[in-house]
């Protein structure tokens, strides 16, 4: 749409409207201008509430973070411009490399599971319509639970004296309890498990909606061709929900890279033994909160995280576009 279009439309409307002849040309022009203004303002008025929220809650903090990232600001002191010092410091900070590694590993491990497992569950639920309601509710239940509550439940389950270890000991599977909450890698994988457990229902519901849109005749044709369950799933279901899979990959990768709640609760807010389970968001929280918060440094870490996530999204969109074109 061009900027001249509204004016042209307005002129046509007025011409077709057939204003009384006794109105002067000046009066017509004024009415014309009012109509144009009204046409221009109306959508903005509709957009205003949402735009205000976005500007105040997203744009302004973003610009502020951008500005802070290049200063040595603390919470109570407006800092000075320090150029790239924060970024140099960041790459010397061993906690940053730990956090980057953990967040990346989290994304790499969680996203494939989040893309595939809910789809399989959705296909299973869709194939058993009688139990679909029950499964949908049961699987969605963890989604509506608070991450803190979920974390506490799993902390108690995975503790040395928790249910999992007690069960393993009773069944004589292990002689020593699993250090789920103290070993760096076990804790990280436990947190990934909790994330998957919490997110399954959400992505399953998305897939269920996508599955409805697949043409039933394709399943009939596959059955006629003698395709089994797995072949049908791979050749009919998966291509049918490919765009949804891309969406789930996109959403789950952003969520996984920003993981906070699960690890925070499982480690009692500490980031694990020796800080070995710190993630990017936890590091930002640690540096950017409290009375001695180094907001400039926290802003720089946030900016790096934004760039990584932006790159991740662009890469995924590029892959999606390439697939669509091919």
């Amino acid at each position: 749409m061009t900027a001249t279009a509204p004016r042209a439309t307005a002129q046509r409307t007025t011409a077709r409207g057939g204003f009384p002849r006794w109105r002067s040309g000046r009066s017509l022009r004024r009415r014309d201008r009012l109509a144009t203004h009204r046409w221009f303002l109306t959508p903005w008025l509709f957009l205003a509430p949402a735009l205000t929220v976005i500007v105040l809650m997203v744009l302004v903090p973003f610009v502020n973070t951008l500005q802070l990232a290049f200063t040595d600001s603390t919470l109570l002191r407006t800092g000075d411009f320090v150029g790239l010092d924060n970024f140099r410091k960041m790459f010397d900070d061993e906690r940053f490399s730990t956090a980057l590694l953990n967040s990346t590993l989290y994304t790499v491990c969680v996203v494939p599971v989040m893309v595939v497992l809910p789809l399989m569950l959705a296909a299973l639920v869709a194939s058993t319509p009688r139990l679909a309601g029950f499964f949908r509710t049961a699987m969605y239940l963890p989604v509506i639970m608070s991450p803190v509550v979920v974390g506490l439940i799993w902390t108690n389950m995975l503790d040395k004296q928790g249910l999992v270890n007690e069960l393993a000991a009773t069944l004589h599977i292990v002689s020593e309890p699993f250090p789920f909450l103290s070993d760096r890698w076990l804790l990280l994988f436990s947190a990934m498990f909790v994330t998957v457990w919490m997110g399954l229902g959400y992505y399953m519901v998305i897939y269920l909606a996508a599955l409805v849109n697949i043409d039933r005749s394709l399943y009939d044709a596959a059955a006629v061709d003698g395709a089994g369950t797995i072949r049908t799933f791979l050749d009919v279901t998966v291509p049918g929900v490919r765009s949804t899979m891309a969406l789930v990959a996109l959403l789950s990768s952003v969520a996984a890279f920003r993981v906070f709640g699960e690890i925070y609760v499982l480690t009692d807010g500490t980031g694990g033994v020796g800080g070995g389970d710190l993630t990017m968001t936890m590091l930002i929280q640690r540096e950017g909160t409290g009375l001695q918060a180094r907001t400039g440094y926290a802003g720089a870490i946030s900016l790096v995280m934004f760039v990584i996530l932006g790159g991740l999204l662009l890469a995924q969109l590029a892959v999606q576009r390439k697939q669509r074109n091919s």
Partner: protein
Amino acid sequence: MTSTGRRRTFVAGALLGSLLLSSCVIGSDSDSTSNDSNASDGEVSGTITFQTWNLKNDKFTPYFNDLIASFEKENPGTTIKWVDQPAEGYQDKLSADAAAGSLPDVVDMGPEAAYTLAQSGVLLDLSKEDPEAQDQYLDKAWEAMTFEGLGGGTYGYPWYLNTGPSFYNKELLQKCGLDPDKLPTTYDELFDQAETMAENCDDVQMLARMPAIENFGEYGVQLMNEDGTEFTYNNAEGVKFVERFKDLYADQGLTEESLNNLQTTEVEEFKAGRLAYLPGSSYTLNDLKDTAPEVYENVAIGPRINNGSPNMYIESLVVNAQSEHQALAKAFAKYVTDSSNQLEFAKKADVFPSSAGTLDGPYFTEDDGTPATQVRVDSAAQVKEAVVWWPPAFSGSADAETLREQIAQALLGDKSVQEALDASVEYSNERLEANG
């Protein structure tokens, strides 16, 4: 939309953003101090806000309501608005208030929070604004709120103190070849007994937590330089202290979980009968009696472990330098922290008063033979020797977390003890400098 339209929208958005941004920046700039405020020596009148943490409940509300009512009666024309919030993340709440310029007039806080706010000029320097108040308090309490790193200013009226004995599980000591009648008094004795316990028992421990900064002080490590401007706990004595933990971990006297445990977990472990030693406070005994009666039956009480002076904690009442009613704020803070009101509060809260002479009263000196009284009397005597070891400049949880993490890495063998302490000191110094 044409490029002209887009440009116009962008410019409008940028202008709006800049306006909001500038207002945010202006709002967050609290470098300026209003210590020069003429409200300081004014009349004791008006309305002020008094902030406490976790004290509005059945136990303490009547005390504070009576306290406020009697103050208002003695000072007609004054109104005290009492605000209480949950203590969790209290530094974050304080920082939000301070950044927004809406800190209450009188706030309950520890020296570590007061230090950072004082650094930013948010708090009233009492050594200048109310120097005669010093006589009302124990010297060591006043000194604990006097920050050498900030030019020797005093930034809070001392309120209550807390220290306590060490608690031991006699049953575990006996089971693991230790004599409950020979309780350790120094850190070296404690480590020796922990080693013995590790040799004889594999399911219980003597220690369950990494040393905190105040433990370094109790061990005899110099924590900061004389000026209070740099941390020094990475010195030889500090390394020696952590090496003892490293040896104990190598001998399986510490579990992997203990490398990351917080104080709450330590208390839980003691109550569960899996831990033999717990550094406690004056209310630990009653807590054990109520929540872990089986452990309470087997508890032995010894002096707080230290190599020189035991640790104590202090809470204070600070006055907002930007308060419009500073005279009233000062008068109220002094009223809350005067001898009779502190004594009454100490009786309710199982803490110790910082007001001069109050500890010499019969409540803190006369033992009626009950275990609770014995703990109170012994702890009150300990206050006289105790030192607030936690340096006020060691502010916020980030410093404490970093110290714990670095020690854990040293114990796991990821780095040497010296490297770990160097990294921790460097981090704390950086934060101190950034806020300076």
